[in-house]
């Protein structure tokens, strides 16, 4: 009997083309758009040597030290910082105007100067390199004042510049903030399960729909109807989330981490939360299905906004400013679970998220069951 009810509920729900569109096709569409829009931002750009023009004049040719320094850091290879163009003043001005070069180095009687069109990071690197040159000159003059005999060793010591930093990785995962938007989209899709839950609650209550009236009059036990309906909604939502995950991971190449078991688990908990949330909302209020659907959509989108679906930084801002909100926001719990699977080696934070999500799902389910169970009708 149970499986009979379940199978027909499944068929019934799957015929709802509108809901299939919003809960399955729309997330796939958004994933595709995210991919097209942020695909190029996903690959972190490697450092490109900074293009700079040097005005070739008498003062520059006389400044052997500067020439040596500049040519040392524009040597092709790993340590290359600059890409030099040594040219006449007119062409240098033109290159700067076209923004082909980040800046122009001009040597005159007063010393070395830099001309730029804007204040940016590349310009700051250029300035730092030139600062280095005048600062080293200052170091040499200070030392020679104190210790004139140091000259020969000092000149030798200047040649060897020690690198004092070594690369360290906190984990193998590449930090990529765009991932947050994809994770929030997965979370949002889980919560879209609420549409199916809402549909269920409308169709089981006699005061909300004709189907509800008919089913309430039938001798089937209420609990059996609720369970089979919920299972059908859960199966649909979970399948939709899995299709989305497959599409993201296999087709679009979004990094989801390697632990398939945990991914499947959090997707299931998320789907259950979504379905339970829709069922509860549909049970507790008597407005028309359209009104409740609208409210649920707005609430879901607000949750998704605060977990970074439209603007990834918002997730960090909320986590810092009001961490309690991230603990009660189911979308934030789901997307943070994906994030912590991807980035952290330990599973502490993942289980915290999964646990809180499990609690949310249980509370929502219990409330909606109590709501549905207590419905009694004086007459039908």
């Amino acid at each position, binding site marked *: 009997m149970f499986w009979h009810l379940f199978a027909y509920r499944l068929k019934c729900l799957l015929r709802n083309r509108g809901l299939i569109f919003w809960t399955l096709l729309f997330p796939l569409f958004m994933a595709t758009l995210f991919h*097209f829009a942020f695909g*190029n931002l996903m690959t*972190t750009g490697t450092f490109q040597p900074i293009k700079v023009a040097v005005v070739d004049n008498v003062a520059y040719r006389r400044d052997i030290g500067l020439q040596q320094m500049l040519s040392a850091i524009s040597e092709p290879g790993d340590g290359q910082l600059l890409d030099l163009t040594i040219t006449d003043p007119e062409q240098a001005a033109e290159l700067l105007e076209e923004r082909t070069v980040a800046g122009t180095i001009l040597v005159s009687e007063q010393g070395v*100067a830099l001309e730029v069109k804007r204040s940016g990071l590349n310009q700051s690197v250029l300035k730092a390199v030139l600062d280095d040159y005048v*600062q080293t000159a200052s170091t040499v003059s200070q030392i020679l004042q104190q210790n004139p005999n140091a000259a020969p060793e000092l000149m030798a*010591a200047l040649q060897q510049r020690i690198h004092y930093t070594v690369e360290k990785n*906190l984990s193998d995962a590449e930090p*990529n*903030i765009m991932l947050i938007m994809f994770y929030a989209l997965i979370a949002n899709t889980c919560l879209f399960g609420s549409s199916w839950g809402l549909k269920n609650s409308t169709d089981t209550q006699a005061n909300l729909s004709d189907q509800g009236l008919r089913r309430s009059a039938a001798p089937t036990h209420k609990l059996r109807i609720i369970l089979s309906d919920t299972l059908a909604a859960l199966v649909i939502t979970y399948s939709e989330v899995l299709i989305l995950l497959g599409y993201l991971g296999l087709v679009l190449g979004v990094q989801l981490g390697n632990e398939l078991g945990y991914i499947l688990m959090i997707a299931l908990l998320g789907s259950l939360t979504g379905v339970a949330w829709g069922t509860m909302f549909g049970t507790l209020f008597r407005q028309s299905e359209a009104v409740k659907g609208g409210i649920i959509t707005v609430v879901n989108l607000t949750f998704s906004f605060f977990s970074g679906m439209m603007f990834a*930084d918002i997730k960090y801002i909320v986590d810092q400013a009001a961490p309690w909100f991230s603990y009660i926001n189911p979308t934030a719990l789901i997307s943070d679970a994906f994030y912590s699977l991807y980035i952290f080696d330990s599973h502490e934070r993942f289980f915290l998220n999964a646990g809180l999500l499990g609690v949310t799902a249980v509370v929502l389910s219990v409330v909606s069951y109590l709501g549905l169970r207590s419905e009694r009708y004086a007459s039908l």
Partner: protein
Amino acid sequence: MPVFKAYFKVLRAALPGIVSYMAIFLALSVVFTFAAPSSAGGQFTQSKIAMAVINRDGESPVATGLTDYLASTNKLVDLPDNPDQLQDALFFRRVEYVVIIPAGFEAGFLADDDVALERVAVPGSTSSHYVDHQVDKYLNTLRLHRQHGRTANWDELLSAVQKDLAKETPVQLQTASGTAETPGFIYYFGYLAYTLLAVVMLGISTIMLAFNKPDVQQRTACSPLSTRRVNLQLAVGHTLFAVTAWAILMAFAFIMYGKEMITSGGLGWVTLNSLAFTIVCASIGLLVGNLVRDHNTQSAAVNVLTLGMSFISGVFVPQSVLSPAVLSFAKFLPSYWYVRTHEAIHELVLSPLTNTMQIAGPLLIQLGFAAAIFAVTLLLSKERRVSMS
């Protein structure tokens, strides 16, 4: 004017959607305008990288000196020595660079051992090269003074280093006669494409959906009003609606950025560009209103078209970060040409010597799109009238 009067009654159904699109857009514009960093005009400002120093070497002079120097050249963020929190802050770009001073660094440094600081940053990024350079500069200067100078104590040593590193190269910031920084209204009109598209499309398609219902259409057909008059009144309604929506958004632009818009010389062009795009939106709204049969399909079509066109044409992210394949597809969408026009206006505002043909060209292409979409819509509705009668 019965049709014209009915127009605004039907429009009320779409009002909640229209108002919420506008309200969210305006609220976000206000937030982003006030949150935008104010730029120092005319002066070169050196980039400061958000970074953290994790000191595991205690209160050693080397560590303190280095931290003070980095604090003066960058923006130091206080983070605890906890890998998860560091990871979090790096992922969300709260800091771009973390330098860890390991225990025993000073002892090793003073003994001229091979010592190194640990650096966690986005590998190969410009900011990581930039801070690396500063760290190396500080420690190398300190090393030279210590090995070859005659300074008596730590205080003198550190102040000698400080004196060296205070030396700067003069930087001249050349600005053209235009504005150096992008003014706020450029962002406003950039995102405006999404809102205009959503609002105008939603409104017009709602009307057409109502008037195209077979029953309503048959009843209008047998009324004494000629088809021409019905269509004329509808057209006046559409024009009035679209222009009002556009005018409201323009009015808010004036309230927020009025002065900038006039002084930058971009006012005329952004007005023309947004008006041209309003016509495009109206044509798409008509087409959608003629194709869909119910509200569910309508809202699906409106959402898919507005989001799809906005993402792919560079409304939400700049066209410069979209891949060439996406862009060559986007050229078939009118929103692509709105963005192109808008970027040319942006150029013009930054340097007034920009050729205005670069603005006029894509602007005319938008009108071409509008004309083509109108033609298709007229053809479709004619075909339907014929098949119905």
